[in-house]
């Protein structure tokens, strides 16, 4: 298994945010992490990024324990994109990509910046300050930053939140295309069920810090007797009994 999460828990003071979750992701697969707000998705991603210290459990990436192994060696192979974090607003798009390319030790950086900029169609506002861009433009720049190091593992937290349908579709298509061309394992946290159905090989459903169900989209929809993932999500989110 490329990513293994074993008995992972996080307690903030007396609040159990993540409760002994176990899952694995095979190499080059895309897994959706679903669940209502406050179910522990962001905390789980934070632990996988090394930003939050687990209270218990292990995260093993390519046979290396994230906690005990040198963090920068593993982080060089990962990247993260979320509309809730931003790049320095006063730097131009090109300057931001240059800074992050250097931080990730990207070789032939100029070529990589050019390549990713053409792919994501951001070259025409290359010299504009990031803070002056529209949400859609910022989102694409943020995605470019998250792909600058050609990550083996990409963590996406609601990558198309607040985007109009056109740009949202562009981003989803790009992720699909990128995944087809590159060796990348993706963990996608999203509240957009169409997006999850379109992009994910399988899903993990969380609620109150626990994993309550997992499987392919079709398996889970069928298991709960619903027509689509949206209806299945609502059933699971609203149910009192936690299923596994």
């Amino acid at each position, binding site marked *: 298994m490329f990513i293994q999460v074993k008995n992972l828990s996080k307690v903030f003071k007396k609040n159990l945010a993540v409760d002994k979750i176990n899952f694995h992701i095979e190499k080059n697969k895309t897994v959706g992490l679903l669940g209502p707000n406050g179910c522990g998705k962001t905390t789980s991603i934070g632990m996988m990024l090394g930003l939050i210290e687990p209270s218990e459990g292990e995260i093993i990436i390519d046979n290396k324990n994230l906690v005990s192994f040198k963090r920068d060696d593993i982080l060089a192979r990962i*990247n*993260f994109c979320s509309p809730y974090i931003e790049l320095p607003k006063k730097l131009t798009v090109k300057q931001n990509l240059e800074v*992050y390319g250097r931080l990730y030790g990207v070789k032939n950086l100029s070529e990589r910046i050019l390549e990713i900029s053409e792919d994501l169609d951001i070259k025409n506002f290359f010299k504009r300050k990031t803070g002056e861009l529209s949400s859609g433009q910022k989102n694409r720049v943020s995605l470019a930053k998250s792909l600058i190091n050609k990550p083996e593992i990409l963590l996406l937290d609601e990558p198309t939140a607040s985007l109009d349908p056109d740009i949202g579709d562009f981003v989803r298509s790009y992720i699909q295309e990128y995944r087809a061309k590159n060796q990348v394992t993706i963990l996608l946290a999203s509240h957009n069920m169409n997006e999850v159905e379109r992009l994910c090989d399988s899903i993990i459903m969380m609620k109150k810090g626990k994993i309550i169900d997992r499987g392919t989209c079709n398996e889970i929809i069928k298991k709960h007797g619903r027509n689509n993932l949206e209806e299945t999500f609502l059933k699971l989110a609203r149910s009192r009994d936690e299923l596994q």
Partner: protein
Amino acid sequence: MNFSKIYALGLRHIYLISNSLPRIIDLIYWPTVQIFLWGFISKFFTLSSDYYSNTVGIILTAAILYDFLFRVSISFNMMFLEEIWSRNFTNLFIAPIRISEIITSLTLTAILRALIGLVPAAILAIPLFGVSVFKLGLPLLFLLLPLYLFGVTLGLLVTSGLLRFGPSFENIAWASLFFLAPLGCIYYPIEILPYSLQILAKGLPLVHIFEEMRNILLNNTVNYFDIIKSISISIVYFILGVIIFYSSYLGAKQRGTLINMGE
């Protein structure tokens, strides 16, 4: 330690400065205002005080050195705050960089920012008031070194507070240096302080630095023992600052505050 990454972190701040003329002006403005202010005050003392009649420039030199300390510390804090304000904190801390590389980058970039402001002001003081801080000669470097280390230490302590308490600690960043200024004996000899405060003051490197500065300017001699003492004390504080920073970082990881810093 990867110097390419340290350079990249520094580059982010160099771009920030070079992209904005108001930022450059701001960096130069405050030291220049200080020079003007203290230039006129010391001129007044020169004309009306016997004590200062033979020591033109002591106050102005002290102001320049104190401003160097102030600039280093504020620059360190500012660069850290920029990451919080721009909500770039998470991006930075998930990049494959070590905490030692972040500290090194902030430390090196802080001196660059401090010098951008200070050098023009120090040069301006020569024609305006006939005072050159460069007259201290080589010992100037030995005075600047502990000031630099102590400025970085104060920056480390404030940024540790930001990691521990979040952006609400920001106001402390601005006020941090003013807390220490009265004990630092920047503009007056240590004997002015009450005895109990003198004991506290001797635990700070500032007293030894500014006492030695006055000694050089008044007596034209250099007491290297005092200089070594000030450097040694600064190193001890610096090591303490690094330990506190690491401890705050680990505490922030435990509390999960790194992921939503700035929100």
